[in-house]
């Protein structure tokens, strides 16, 4: 699938500039970079939450995009009802609740969950849907190690089962190395390097990426 080149500015200040991109189905992409490098803006524009400069479309028409915002939100419904928003498949909801270890909280109001529980519920809710492209913006930021492992496993499984392309925005280089097939590296709002995870996350070509890895990857 193709993503078209775009730029996004805030108050005349360029936040991110992205060239044309081609994403492969069934592939997990790690989107990495330092804070303020434009990773989240990139993902929010592709998700349609932010409009790019010029308001031109950035995805192919009809492309189904699923998006998990950085800050998970539980609607004032039960956990189960939250999951059923994306699809009415109750069996699927039960399976996903079990996968994120929230079966015992299915009837609890979602806005009363803890931060980590809300994040897991939000991931399960997103995975109720079928998408061509899924974007997860730092899904494990508020999770403990066990929940993080659970989330990573579920994410991998979702990509394998649905064959979608998945963009995982993460500040954790270790997580990117554990999960990603390919990687995109952002620096100061520019997509500096992209390619197989083995190259970008271990032996990058660009000096800025090498510097980033030496700083965060040791």
């Amino acid at each position, binding site marked *: 699938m193709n993503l078209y080149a775009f730029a996004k500015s805030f108050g005349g200040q360029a936040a991110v500039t992205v060239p044309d991109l081609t994403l492969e189905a069934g592939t997990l992409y790690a989107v990495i970079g330092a804070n303020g490098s434009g990773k989240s803006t990139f993902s929010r524009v592709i998700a349609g*939450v932010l409009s790019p400069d010029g308001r031109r479309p950035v995805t192919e028409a009809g492309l189904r995009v699923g998006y998990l*915002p950085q800050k998970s939100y539980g609607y004032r*419904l039960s956990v189960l009802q939250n999951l059923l*928003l*994306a699809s009415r498949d109750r069996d699927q909801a039960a399976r996903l609740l079990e996968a994120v270890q929230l079966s015992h909280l299915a009837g609890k109001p979602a806005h009363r969950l803890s931060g980590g529980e809300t994040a897991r519920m939000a991931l399960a809710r997103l995975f109720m849907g079928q*998408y061509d492209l899924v974007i997860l913006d730092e899904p494990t930021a508020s999770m403990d190690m066990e929940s993080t492992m659970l989330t990573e496993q579920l994410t991998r499984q979702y990509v394998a089962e649905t064959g979608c392309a998945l963009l995982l925005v993460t500040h954790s280089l270790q997580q990117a190395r554990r999960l990603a097939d390919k990687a995109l590296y952002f620096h100061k709002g520019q997509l500096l390097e992209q390619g197989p995870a083995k190259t970008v996350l271990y032996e990058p070509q660009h000096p800025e990426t090498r510097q980033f890895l030496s700083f965060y990857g040791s």
Partner: protein
Amino acid sequence: MGSAVEQAVQLIASGDRELLNILSVTARMSLSSSLIALLLGVPLGLLLGACRFPGRGLLLVLNRTLMGVPPVVCGLIFYILFSGVGPLRHLHLLFTVEIMILAQVVLITPLLTSHMETYAAQIAGPVRETAKGLGLSRWKTFLLLLNESRYPIFSGYLLGFSRAIAEVGAVSMVGGAIAWKTNVMTTAIMQYTNRGNFSLGIALGLILLVLSLGMNLALSLLQRKVAS
């Protein structure tokens, strides 16, 4: 003073016909005006709080201006519009409960709009972003926003009703405080006190105070529920 209070309690207990009529007109006016204001103010408030569109700033300024309009000025405008020389005289609404409701809707709707706008501005971002991420339709997103706002909607209604039941300036001007027709609690308290009939005034005052206490208790309970 003591005997007036005693007489007031007797009037309430005996179900005095005039008192019941005043209460009935008050209830009809306050319930109707606050309900209409709710139906107008909630969607308008949600729209202003959750959406960005051309003219939004102007609408916000207009709403804030309307919030500050003194009730007597509102009453005066309605009086001029519907009086014998006014452009809407053919509707024959002056000194009816209907025009009292209309005047109160104009006074209360901006309050409810502002109440909902403030709340919607806080929650619209995450509600919309999450719904967009799930691929939900705009209509479903609006319904979710409405569901997220159910406690503020109810507390807004209580606020509107409290304002309606305690309002005196506009309703006395356009309703005329006609006995057995447009006399409501607040206008009746003024009328009977001016005539020296303190017992009926005190009886109505007591009922108003009890209602106000009930409203405030309900609001406090709601606020506690929202906070939890």
